[in-house]
């Protein structure tokens, strides 16, 4: 009986296999990036802590100096040529960097929350702390110590400036200046409103498409005599020519809009989805409506033998078709680009069933 409830050994996977499985869990590039940033942030924190510890140690050393030893160091710096040179160069460089620090702090405060910039700049004072220590022993003047602190602050702010643009969006959002967030919200609202406007216009155009379809059927159902009359009436009316010409001009503008899109809006080429959905996509959904309208006039003109009008429409039609094809080519290019930017899984999922 006992033998029956004993599990065979081979049912339990050896621990090494489990470990091997865990090691193969894939990490997305974003996760990898975040981990690296976290690592960098931890490193900066550790290094800052080390610097602070060193500062404390140096302070202890300086404090342990006898007054005459401190005087000796100060004397060497102030009285020997070598000491004077070192101090001159140090003060000169520090002064310039101090001004740069002020400028950089102001510049970053325009983009990021000024409080965050101040805190980050404050961390850098650790680097300049050495001069602060020396002043307590009369080795450096108070002014030089302040300059030294600013130099440290500048270094850290410079690093922050470099890394801030690569931080994850969620973190960047937190440290961004409040006013910029508000600006972004306003702009997003405006775009959402624009999308709603476009949706309404598309509904209107959809309705027109149906009406145009119905009119085409109505023209087809006319008798030959009626068709002749309609064609003659259209041919005599200058409005027919000017309106079809105007439609042609609209489609030429569409064509130009698509052709110049990347040049005019270079920043949108990196956000293809937005470019397609906010501007190009909605328009193209019903771009054949114009072609249909023209066909409707063509139908009336051809059926009634209106030669002048037929010839005019032939030319207009060609231009419209050309414009539509240009537009389609552009959208196809954008669509292909959007598709190639998909991950393999997304590409498989997007295939038709």
């Amino acid at each position, binding site marked *: 009986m006992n033998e029956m409830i004993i599990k065979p050994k081979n049912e339990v996977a050896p621990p090494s296999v489990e470990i091997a499985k865990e090691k193969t869990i894939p990490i997305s590039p974003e996760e990898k990036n975040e981990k690296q940033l976290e690592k960098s942030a931890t490193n900066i924190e550790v290094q800052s802590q080390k610097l602070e510890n060193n500062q404390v140690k140096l302070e202890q050393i300086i404090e342990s100096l006898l007054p005459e030893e401190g005087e000796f160091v100060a004397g060497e710096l102030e009285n020997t040529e070598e000491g004077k040179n070192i101090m001159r160069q140090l003060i000169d460089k520090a002064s310039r960097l101090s001004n740069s620090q002020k400028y950089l702090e102001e510049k970053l405060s325009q983009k990021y929350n000024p409080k965050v910039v101040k805190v980050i700049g404050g961390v850098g004072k650790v680097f300049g702390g050495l001069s602060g220590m020396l002043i307590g022993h009369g080795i450096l003047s108070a002014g030089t110590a302040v300059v030294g602190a600013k130099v440290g602050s500048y270094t850290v702010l410079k690093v922050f400036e470099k890394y801030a643009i690569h931080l994850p969006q969620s973190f960047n959002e937190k440290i961004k200046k409040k006013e910029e967030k508000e600006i972004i919200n306003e702009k997003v609202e405006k775009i959402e409103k624009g999308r709603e406007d476009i949706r309404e216009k598309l509904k209107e155009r959809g309705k*027109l498409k149906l009406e145009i379809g119905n009119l085409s059927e109505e023209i087809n159902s006319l008798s030959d005599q009626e068709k002749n009359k309609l064609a003659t009436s259209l041919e005599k009316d200058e409005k027919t020519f000017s309106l079809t010409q105007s439609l042609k001009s609209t489609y030429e503008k569409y064509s130009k809009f698509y052709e110049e899109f990347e040049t005019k809006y270079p920043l949108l080429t990196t956000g293809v989805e937005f470019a397609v959905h906010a501007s190009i996509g909605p*328009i193209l959904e019903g771009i054949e409506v114009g072609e249909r309208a023209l066909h409707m006039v063509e139908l*009336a003109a051809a059926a009634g033998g209106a030669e002048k009008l037929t010839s005019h429409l032939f030319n207009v039609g060609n231009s419209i078709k050309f414009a539509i094809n240009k537009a389609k080519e552009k959208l196809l290019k954008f669509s292909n680009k959007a598709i190639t930017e998909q991950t393999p899984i*997304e590409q498989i999922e997007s295939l038709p069933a």
Partner: protein
Amino acid sequence: MNFETKKMNNNDKPKKDLKDLSVEQLDQIAESQNESKKLLDEEIANLTAIKDLLKEKIKEVKENKE
């Protein structure tokens, strides 16, 4: 995969949040959106005028017959 299918797939694809974009990118979207709105308005106006003209002409032809 034909043109229509590609278009639909792009429409179905989840979009990124607009708030993730820079101020400059948002400005360009708004600008391109305005341009496309103007074109749509122009197109709708032209199509409506052509439709109305034909409607009127068909009506005239039919009325003359009666």
